[in-house]
């Protein structure tokens, strides 16, 4: 905020030159433009999507390759794939975060190695995750196009995000907690279980919610791992289509699927907004809690 005060042009001693005015005009124009584009995308989606949205849309089976009917199987498949991916990514990620924050020094070689691997993983394009999942899970592991293959692929994809967010949560637990646990003679494992994890829980939930958001938004990695069969998957071995894949299929491969794609888009965006809101709320509670401890 100080920057803003110090750079206010109204301060008497400064000349406001032409470049100053031009820069201000330009920056305000860009800001308006960016906000306008966001509104354009969201409002367009709502205007065309909301009229098709109803409880029936969420609960009905699709008809005519998705041109009519609802998205019930898509919702089920999405939930299944999410659950598989989180069930794998959360334990792995939490263990990694615990090791990084509680057991090894920041500068140690192993820590550097793990961090580097996570950074590389975070940079891999999602379509490449799709290729990887197709080769490893679908082919070599013989899972075929399935909820399991898609979920595992997504787990690999969200792992870096989950590790980083939950490591941050663990690190923001005040050191007083660790000292108090030591003073009580708790072993490290006991301290983690009964002191650190409970204290970091809201932050870890934020990590969970963020990862869910990333997984929900993904489609490219799923096209060739979980596939695009438009039925309710009966087991983890069945193919299923997520919301994002459904939008892609309707828009690209189903002539006349546009209005259903709009409605599905509203559902997906609504879910993501909800997640966004949840993160913000959790974050606030979490911040208040840590501050309360410090006081």
């Amino acid at each position: 905020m100080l920057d803003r005060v110090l750079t206010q042009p109204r301060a008497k001693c400064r000349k406001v030159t032409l470049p100053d005015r031009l820069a201000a005009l330009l920056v305000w124009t860009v800001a308006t433009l960016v906000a306008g584009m966001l509104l354009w995308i969201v409002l367009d989606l709502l205007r065309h999507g909301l009229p098709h949205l109803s409880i029936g849309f969420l609960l009905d089976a699709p008809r005519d390759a998705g041109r009519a009917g609802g998205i019930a199987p898509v919702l089920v498949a999405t939930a299944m794939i999410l659950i598989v991916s989180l069930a794998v990514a959360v334990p792995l990620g939490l263990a990694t975060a615990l090791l990084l924050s509680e057991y090894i020094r920041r500068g140690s070689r192993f820590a550097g190695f793990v961090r580097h691997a996570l950074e590389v993983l975070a940079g891999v394009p999602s379509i490449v995750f799709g290729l990887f999942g197709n080769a490893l899970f679908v082919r070599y592991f013989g899972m075929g196009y399935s909820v399991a293959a898609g979920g595992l692929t997504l787990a690999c994809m969200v792992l870096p995000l989950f590790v980083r967010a939950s490591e941050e949560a663990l690190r923001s637990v005040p050191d007083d907690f660790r000292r108090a646990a030591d003073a009580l003679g708790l072993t490290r494992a006991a301290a983690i279980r009964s002191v650190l994890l409970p204290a970091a829980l809201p932050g870890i939930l934020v990590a969970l919610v963020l990862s869910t958001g990333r997984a929900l938004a993904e489609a490219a990695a799923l096209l060739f791992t979980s596939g695009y069969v438009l039925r309710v998957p009966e087991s983890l071995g069945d193919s299923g289509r997520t919301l994002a894949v459904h939008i892609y299929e309707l828009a690209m491969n189903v002539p006349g699927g546009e209005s259903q794609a709009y409605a599905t888009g509203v559902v997906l965006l609504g879910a993501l907004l909800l997640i966004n809101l949840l993160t913000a709320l959790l974050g606030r509670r979490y911040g208040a809690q840590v501050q309360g401890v410090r006081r």
Partner: protein
Amino acid sequence: MSPQRSEQLLLIPLRLAAMSAAVICFLIVALLVLESLPALNNIGWRLLSDANWRPTPAAADGAFRVTPMVVATLVITAGAVLLAAPLGLASALFCRFYASPSVAVVYRRLVELLAGIPGVIYGFWGLVVLVPLLGAWRPPGASLLAASLVLALMILPTVALISESAMRAVPQRYVRAAAALGLSRWGTIRSVILPSARRGILTAVILATGRAIGETLAVVMVVGNIVRFPSGLMEPVRALTGNIALEMGYASGDHRSALFFSGLVLTGLVMVLVLFANRLGHRGAISDA
């Protein structure tokens, strides 16, 4: 069992779990290389020298030139970055120096929201809104320009959020010194803020470039997907990522292998960018995007 021993026992699974990221990285590269080998053996230099892209399961029957798609990807990305870099930078400046505190908070939320919109929705919006608009001006509409525009919108938040955090890291005393010298707002930005935040801003642009190269569905949906060298902004082309998405479903044999090879090329391109951005430093900022 002594406490030390239980400590050690717990460390083993934790270390194993922490290795998983490295193992996945290794598997990705190993599988990409392994699956690319048939293409490299059977097609080889024909990936560059064939007359066009007409893939078949057996290398001898088809044509496998990937260069038009590589060039298209690079041109689309360049266009997107050229648009998004100045716009994102201006957005960051707006948040930091021009908007009132309450407007800045709302605006930052908007940009974060823009960052959270899935690629599929950008692509869909491009398909049903942008492409018809461009098509009314210069048919067919699905074009290199449409892809660059949609991508620019997608990577703009990356540029804006990371460069803003780079600007936040500029020491307050620089700003105070500039104020004491009587520099105007723009003067301060141009001669103090931008120079001291330039590494962070460069990092932002490089990471955004990486995202643009790797983005698939938003591009597939608006770019027209005709395999040829880009010859104009309004021409439909096909990107390397899009080619994988469009053909993996039915590809087999050497064709499938050629697609894995394009994945390998993509990963290589993005890795170079990510590693370069990490070397530039400003690690804290990377985690914001």
